[in-house]
């Protein structure tokens, strides 16, 4: 595969994954807003699915992933079970974190997904360290560490990237740049040319991609991860995309310039673009519609199943704390 070529099977895989992520989150948002089944905040990645799909297709199941509060897509694409994820979002038994973490702390260690994070930027040093651990263990696994554009203004961005360069670690940092930090346009609070320039100045090899083009992301990450796995050191990917929704499912995002979101949805939606590409490659409308319908049907069924699950046993509130010292002995 050249970096510009398209492999039809992979193109389909990318579309399928993006449709599944979109469907997963659309149903999660409905569950939150309409059905009040999700009590905590959820941060949809609707419009940003190309990064998740494009990056994860290049990873092995045992490679490591760290993500953010906006991590459903990454987690699903890494191979996590959507039913366990839904159960987690609904705080139910059988959730991938036993109902203890919720959307913001979703994790599935079985597929190398070591956690979303509720603290912006915190995963950057942790991801560097996971790669450090892999190197110490002599493993050929690699780590991918995804964060938003807002995170580049926090100290861990500098400390984590510097760490990876100094210790020459097998890690790919991805800035998934959706242009907003909550309600603030990130460029209004970011000095200088931005994430890529900063990473370059820290000594990382940098690639910038159109983060709404799944093929471009996939091609870039195929090459990058091959280099990293062969020991060429840490790299940085700046994936430029757009957050089509509010910051959380409850946020109407009235602070955005008029028409901005509509324009992105109409002209730059990663799923629509991938469908277009596949159509141009000869796929028929029916095939593409089926991918969409299957994803919707899958997630509609799973969220129902999750909603029918019971809440975790009360006493699990006191398990998984620590080995030494009982969590409840000083309680009341």
């Amino acid at each position, binding site marked *: 595969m050249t970096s510009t070529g398209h492999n039809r099977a992979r193109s389909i895989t990318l579309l399928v994954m993006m449709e599944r992520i979109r469907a997963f989150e659309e149903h999660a948002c409905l569950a939150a807003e309409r059905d009040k089944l999700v009590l905590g905040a959820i941060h949809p990645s609707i419009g940003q699915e190309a990064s998740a799909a494009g990056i994860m297709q290049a990873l092995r199941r045992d490679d490591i992933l760290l993500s953010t509060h906006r991590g459903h897509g990454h987690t699903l694409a890494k191979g996590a079970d959507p039913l366990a994820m839904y159960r987690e979002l609904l705080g139910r038994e059988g959730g991938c974190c036993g109902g203890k973490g919720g959307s913001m702390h979703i994790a599935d260690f079985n597929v190398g997904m070591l956690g979303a994070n509720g603290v912006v930027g915190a995963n950057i040093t942790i991801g560097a360290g996971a790669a450090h651990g892999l190197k110490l263990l002599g493993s050929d696994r690699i780590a991918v560490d995804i964060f938003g554009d*807002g995170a580049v203004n926090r100290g861990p961005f500098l400390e984590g990237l510097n760490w990876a360069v100094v210790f020459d670690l097998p890690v790919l940092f991805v800035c998934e740049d959706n242009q907003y930090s909550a309600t603030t346009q990130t460029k209004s609070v970011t000095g200088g040319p931005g994430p890529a320039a900063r990473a370059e100045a820290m000594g990382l090899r940098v690639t910038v991609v159109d983060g709404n083009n799944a093929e471009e992301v996939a091609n870039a990450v195929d090459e990058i991860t091959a280099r990293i796995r062969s020991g060429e050191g840490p790299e940085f990917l700046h994936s430029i995309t757009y957050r089509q929704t509010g910051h959380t499912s409850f946020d109407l995002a009235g602070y955005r310039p008029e028409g901005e979101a509509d324009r992105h949805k109409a002209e730059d939606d990663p799923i629509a673009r991938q469908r277009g590409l596949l159509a141009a490659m000869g796929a028929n409308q029916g095939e593409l519609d089926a991918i969409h319908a299957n994803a919707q049907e899958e997630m509609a069924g799973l969220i129902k199943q999750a909603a029918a699950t019971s*809440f975790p046993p009360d006493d699990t509130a006191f398990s998984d704390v620590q080995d030494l010292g009982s969590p*409840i002995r000083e309680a009341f």
Partner: protein
Amino acid sequence: MAKMTYVEASREAVREAMQADATVWCVGEDLGRGSVFGQYLGLQDEFGKDRVVDTPISEAGIMGAAFGAAMVGTRPIVEMRFSDFALCATDELVNQIAKARFMFGGQSRAPMVIRKPTGMWRSSAAQHSQSLESWYTHIPGLVVVCPATPQDNYSMMKAAIASDDPVVYFEHKNIWGMEGKVDRNLEVEIGRAAIRREGGDLTLVSWSDTANLAIQAGDALATKGVSAEVIDLRSLWPWDKEAVIASVQKTGRLIVAHESVAVGGFGAEVVASIAQEVTMKTPPRRLGAPRSLVAYAPNLEDQMRVTADMMVTAAMEMIKT
């Protein structure tokens, strides 16, 4: 007297302080859109972007920069969004802000209000639910305020802004919508407790939203013929030890209740201080969270809560011995 919610009350206090003193300003993330809970709604329109400053996501930067600006003569109000995120600026708050005046032999002041929305609030999980007020009571140089009502959130915010000390100001996320009458002329001295209910059988001490539960517990106890004195400390440093001593000398019984983890919580300080001064009829009690984490699932989250019922049960056990 105006009727206001808890969130409106501190917003009003901030607005009036900004009107009265051009050196007062607010700094934090997303303030131009009101911040997460609407605490700053309208203030950027009124005072402009230079005095209601939208920042990068940069808690260490916010805290450190506000401190620098305080040392040259401004009075920043620092928004930390969730008290949990303030941990990203711990060096700045504890090693720098709290210590500067002393280390520099009195040359500097850090007149700052550091706002930390605190506590459990609908399935926010372990990184957005902590109550860490006891930490800051342990740090010389810091003032610690935990208002429980709209009136206190108005009057104590005013007092905090007026103070030349750095004030760590905990607003409880669960009661932003709580309504109450607010007298704009009422001054509340930081360090002075409020006796929310008088009583002779036992003393129930609390602060922040748990103080509201303590009032409920006092009401419930009254129906059982037990007269509880309910004290809302309102600030933990300085704290009104004298008021608690006077009350326990009268009642002979003490329960301290708080939302934060019991182990190492400020309840221990209150109990230890009083045990040292007053001989009680029954051993004192603390009610606080188990030493576990706040989970996301609502039923698990509830396991960490101190409720009015628990206070009633503990009080009845005490009265019966």
